[in-house]
């Protein structure tokens, strides 16, 4: 059964159709990649999935439940979290504080106003796990604003992961990461637990083909091809429209 499904999703900005009739099914536990040339509407789709944008038409189902009218922070509670193509971090906080924030929010103690931060062992225990998993232990006390870019990218994913999503949307996680820090990032993404379903949006074809077990291609706001990586790689239309373009570029 699909854990995340869209039915005829459409977004118009005035006369421009950014997404048209996108019906996407992401299977539970999948490593699903959404690819497409620049301006294909990938980020528009993510923004509709997470509730940042309101679709003009169509429905979004998470675990069989219609979430189309639910506000963004509630969708996080229902088990869907995202990362951002351009880092959206809390620059004045440390990774420790940022992750702690997400964990305590998930455990329902984010509005506690009388307890000191750091006084709940359920929260601190989980922070340790996440800091380790995302290789942030040695920088956990450093203000986010001065972290190396690769670490910021890891924190970007860690924050989404800390809300314990069942579906994790990664919006170009490797974008702009220098070669030296890339390996660490990719290894961390590879190592995400299999219970978490991942929908990956990426330009980097190496990452897509090494990671994904299913690929959907979006072109001009429409779902073009949808299938296993081998099939997508062989599909002549994809080669013409997308991979060809990449090679030319």
């Amino acid at each position, binding site marked *: 059964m699909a854990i995340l499904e869209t039915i005829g999703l459409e977004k118009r900005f005035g006369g421009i159709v950014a997404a048209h009739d996108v019906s996407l099914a992401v299977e539970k536990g999948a490593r699903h990649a959404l690819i497409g040339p620049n301006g294909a509407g990938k980020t528009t789709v993510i923004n509709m999935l*997470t509730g*940042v944008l309101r679709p003009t038409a169509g429905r979004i189902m998470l675990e069989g439940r219609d979430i189309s009218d639910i*506000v*963004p*922070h509630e969708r*996080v*509670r229902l088990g869907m*979290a*995202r990362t*951002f193509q351009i880092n*959206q*971090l*809390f*620059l*004045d*906080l440390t990774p*420790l*504080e*940022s992750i*702690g*924030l*997400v964990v*305590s*929010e*998930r455990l329902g*103690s*984010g*509005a*506690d*106003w*009388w*307890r*000191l*931060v*750091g*006084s709940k*062992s359920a929260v*601190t*225990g989980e*922070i*340790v796990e996440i*800091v*380790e998993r995302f*290789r942030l*232990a*040695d920088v*956990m*006390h450093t203000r986010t604003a001065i972290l190396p870019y690769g670490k910021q990218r890891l924190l970007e994913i860690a*924050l*989404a992961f*800390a*809300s314990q999503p069942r579906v994790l949307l990664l919006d170009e996680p490797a974008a702009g990461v220098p070669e030296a820090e890339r390996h660490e990032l990719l290894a961390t993404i590879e190592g995400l637990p299999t219970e978490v379903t991942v929908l990956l949006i990426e330009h980097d074809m190496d990452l897509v083909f090494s990671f994904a077990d299913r690929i959907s291609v979006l072109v001009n706001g429409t779902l073009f091809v949808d299938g296993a990586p081998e099939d997508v790689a062989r599909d002549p239309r994809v080669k013409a429209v997308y991979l060809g373009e990449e090679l030319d570029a």
Partner: protein
Amino acid sequence: MTTTPTAGDVSAFLKRRARWSPLEAAFWVFAFATIWLFPDKYLILKDSAILALFALSLDLILGYAGIISLGQAAFFGFAGYFAGLVAKYGVINEPVIALICAGFAAAALGFVTSFLVLRGSDLTRLMVTLGVSLMLGELANRYSNITGGADGLQGVEIAPVLGRFNFDLYGHNAYVYCLIVLFVCFLIARRIVYSPFGLSLRAVKGNVLRASAIGIPVKWRLVSIYTVSAFFAGIAGALLTQTTAFCSLDVFSLERSADLLLVLIIGGTGYLYGGLIGAVIYKLLQDWIANLTPQYWQFWIGMVLVVIVLIGRERMAGWIAAARAFLTGVVGRLLPNSAALTGATRDGQ
């Protein structure tokens, strides 16, 4: 090399920010010492304490949640009249209970108006907050049968605090009362900003988009802190009424709200002491300059502000840090054993 942190480390580190520093303790010891040190200055000290509490209320929303407001006087004035009226008509006689009730009345007003304020950008917020306080001021003017209108609320009699301490002529009890209330409110505010709730406010201020993407209900957090801020502003207003046994329309004035921004520009935002230090400096400066040139004091206040903003807070913080390092060095040399007390690390000489 990567070290593996434990839950204990994490907890200790997260709590570290909330620990009392010696400097903070010294601040409060000195604040309470003023009761004995400056017995002839009670009036200005009391005004500073009230202004400090009022500025603290603005710092909570501006420094921690990024909500700018020109309308804190709405809560100050509302609670001021509330405290005056309940005392005048003998509804609640005991001042502490009346004070708390006035705070809650202001909080209720804050809660209701928060929904207007929290939409839109900074400029919208400035205008809406300003508008709300202007409206309340005009209502108080219109219903002069209740408020006394332009003549102010006459005939307010304040019962002794806790049934024992009368507000004396010299203002001693009034100042002690204000200082204790300020301290208690400060402790509550301090607890709030170092709680998970307070941390989430800083997250909202830092990045709203991400805050909602990690599951923070942004709107409700802002409504909550706005309400709390209104509570503190209300307490400040009620203190003024109780300690002067009078309340007039100027509690709603734009100047009162604008003064707060000046106080926070002087003292800085987002570390709680900004409002306190700023209020004291502002009051002393005002008093000192007004003594020098009674007619043109506002000119000098204006110039001080321009200078502060042009020099910039970071540079001044740098000077203060340098001065502090120098002083600890001097103290350390004079009293070699005090290094542990001041926390200074010196090279072994």
